[in-house]
């Protein structure tokens, strides 16, 4: 296993810059998840590490060795593709041992390593099957097995779960987490699913428009997002944003009134700010005063134990609050919503976190 260090990496397709100044360190044995909306460059970054995509500038090193000019096979990586990319004309064992065969490994060694990978992934009964005779989950395990057999320094996963159905996705996610622990593998994993990112990652890297918006531990990103983009991207349903301006002693929200909170030093009165709060930190509460805003219920989504209330505030802004247990709320109800003052996030006009 090895660490991956990326410095000042950039990549353009003609005039379009898809990666800008990417600096990223993946520690030995860590699980790093690249996450972001479609077209943010996360897959391109992964493919650049793999050597499938030539880069325009910057450096990539794996295990202390710069790999910029090397072919994918020489980089010590193994990639698991979103589409699995199994060779359809070969059985499972041949698929897993294919790379070794062309590397000139002895037959006995190939067989032993395929056997070992099959044991880890419980694929032993399937070794003689063709990919078309396997279910989606089995194919995904074969694709992972093919990566394991190569004993790479770094595993690269490109949205490996997006073709699986919901139940299988949860199982395979647990399986991948287990494999990571067992193999002590360095893994770079691309996904657009933030649940995967939150549950699997040692470090999440949030990307947008070819830049890294923030990187850090999952809960750090959740509780202290560095900017509006990360705040809105991590968490589901997304964080509520209320636009307002800084006034003495708090944030003025126009028709919604004043939210009194200590402003971080240096905040100029009159500056445009955005207040952020997650749905679970909002409560439906009758009465007035404190951090309470009048609201009208637009829609109630009940998920069983929890639920979400879509609210329209006096200013016309919309917000979602989480509810627990049974409530008699229904569309059109007038109520109040209370904000947890300790859980408020404040962002400046440029989108950066204040304080």
């Amino acid at each position, binding site marked *: 296993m090895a660490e991956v260090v990326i410095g000042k990496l950039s990549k353009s397709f003609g005039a379009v810059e898809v990666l800008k100044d990417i600096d990223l360190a993946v520690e030995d044995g860590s699980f790093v998840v690249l996450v972001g909306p479609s077209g943010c460059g996360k897959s391109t970054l992964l493919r650049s590490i*793999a050597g*499938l995509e030539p880069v325009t500038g910057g450096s990539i090193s794996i295990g202390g060795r710069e790999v910029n000019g090397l*072919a*994918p*096979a*020489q980089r010590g*990586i*193994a*990639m698991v*593709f*979103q*589409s*699995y*990319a*199994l*060779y*359809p*004309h070969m059985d499972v064992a041949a698929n897993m041992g*294919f*790379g070794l065969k*062309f*590397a000139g490994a002895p037959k006995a060694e190939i067989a032993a390593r395929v056997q070992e990978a099959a044991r880890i992934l419980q694929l032993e009964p399937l070794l003689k099957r*063709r*990919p*078309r*005779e*396997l279910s*989606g989950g089995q*194919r995904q395990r074969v694709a992972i097995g*093919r990566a394991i057999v*190569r004993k790479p320094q770094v595993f690269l996963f490109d949205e490996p779960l997006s*073709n699986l159905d919901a139940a299988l996705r949860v199982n395979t996610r647990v399986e991948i987490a287990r494999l990571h622990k067992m193999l002590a593998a360095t893994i770079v994993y691309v996904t657009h699913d933030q649940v995967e990112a939150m549950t699997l990652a040692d470090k999440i890297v949030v990307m947008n428009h070819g830049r890294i918006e923030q990187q850090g531990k999952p809960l750090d990103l959740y509780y202290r997002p560095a900017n509006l983009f990360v705040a809105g991207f991590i968490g589901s349903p997304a964080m509520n944003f209320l636009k307002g301006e800084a006034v003495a002693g708090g944030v003025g929200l126009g028709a919604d009134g004043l939210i009194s909170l200590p402003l971080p030093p240096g905040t100029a009165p009159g500056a445009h700010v955005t207040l952020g709060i997650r749905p679970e930190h909002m409560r439906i509460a009758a009465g007035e005063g404190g951090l309470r805003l009048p609201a009208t219920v637009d829609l109630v989504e009940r998920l069983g134990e929890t639920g979400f209330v879509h609210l329209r505030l006096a200013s016309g802004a919309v917000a979602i609050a989480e509810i627990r247990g049974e409530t008699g709320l229904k569309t059109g109800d007038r109520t109040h919503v209370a904000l947890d003052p300790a859980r408020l996030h404040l962002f400046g006009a440029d989108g950066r976190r204040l304080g």
Partner: protein
Amino acid sequence: MRKPLSAFAVHAILGLYTLLALFPIVLVVMNSFKARRAIFNTPLHPPSPANFDPVGYARVFGDSSLAFYYLNSITVTAGAIILTLLFGAMAAWALTEYKFRWNTLLALFLSIGIMVPIRLGSVAIIQLVAELNLINTLTALILVYTAQNLPLAIFILSEFIAQIPKDLREAARCDGLSEYNIFFHVILPLIRPAMATVAVFTMIPVWNDLWFPLLLAPAGGRQTITLGVQQFLGQYITDWNAVLAALSTAIVPVLLLYVIFSRQLIRGLTSGAVK
């Protein structure tokens, strides 16, 4: 489409067409077993014990040169198929997979070959073949047929190769295969159905061709079977028994080849690769 009536109509039309297409062949095969007089008197009747006469076959199999003509035809057809498939697949792979200067122009140039009949260049081809001292050789025929069939082969195979998921080639690259190994061990096995299609398209016109054998290899024991049959067609007397028997036997090898290739025309060979 799914209405039984229209399904019936489709089958009726196809059946009619099949009858039309098979009629001359059936006629040839039927009459090849009949005595000369019966061929002329009752050409549409099937052979009966009264007029059964395998003299044509006796003459065809008795003529030792005809066996060579069959062999020539098989050599030329097989050679042309192999070269067409090999070079066609390689060119198609290069044109679809790699970006290089003149890529589009080269593809266009090759597709012109589909539109312009090669026979227009017959005179130049004869000159070229003569210069190369290849007159009356099977090599000349194989080369000409390969050239004739390459454009369409590249066109068809490019389409199929383009449909092979990109991830597969990239997985092979991550597995450390050289570009040649990717071509021979991943791409070729996956385009087998397409290659069978091309082989069938290539084989039948080549086997049946009279033009180029007549121009390039009309003598020296290098005649193909279509040309060889001509020896039974005289200016004054034609040995119809032998001609019909030779034509009937000429169907067999091409039919065998077709059966072999059509077994490869299985759809969905790539299923299971992705998703």
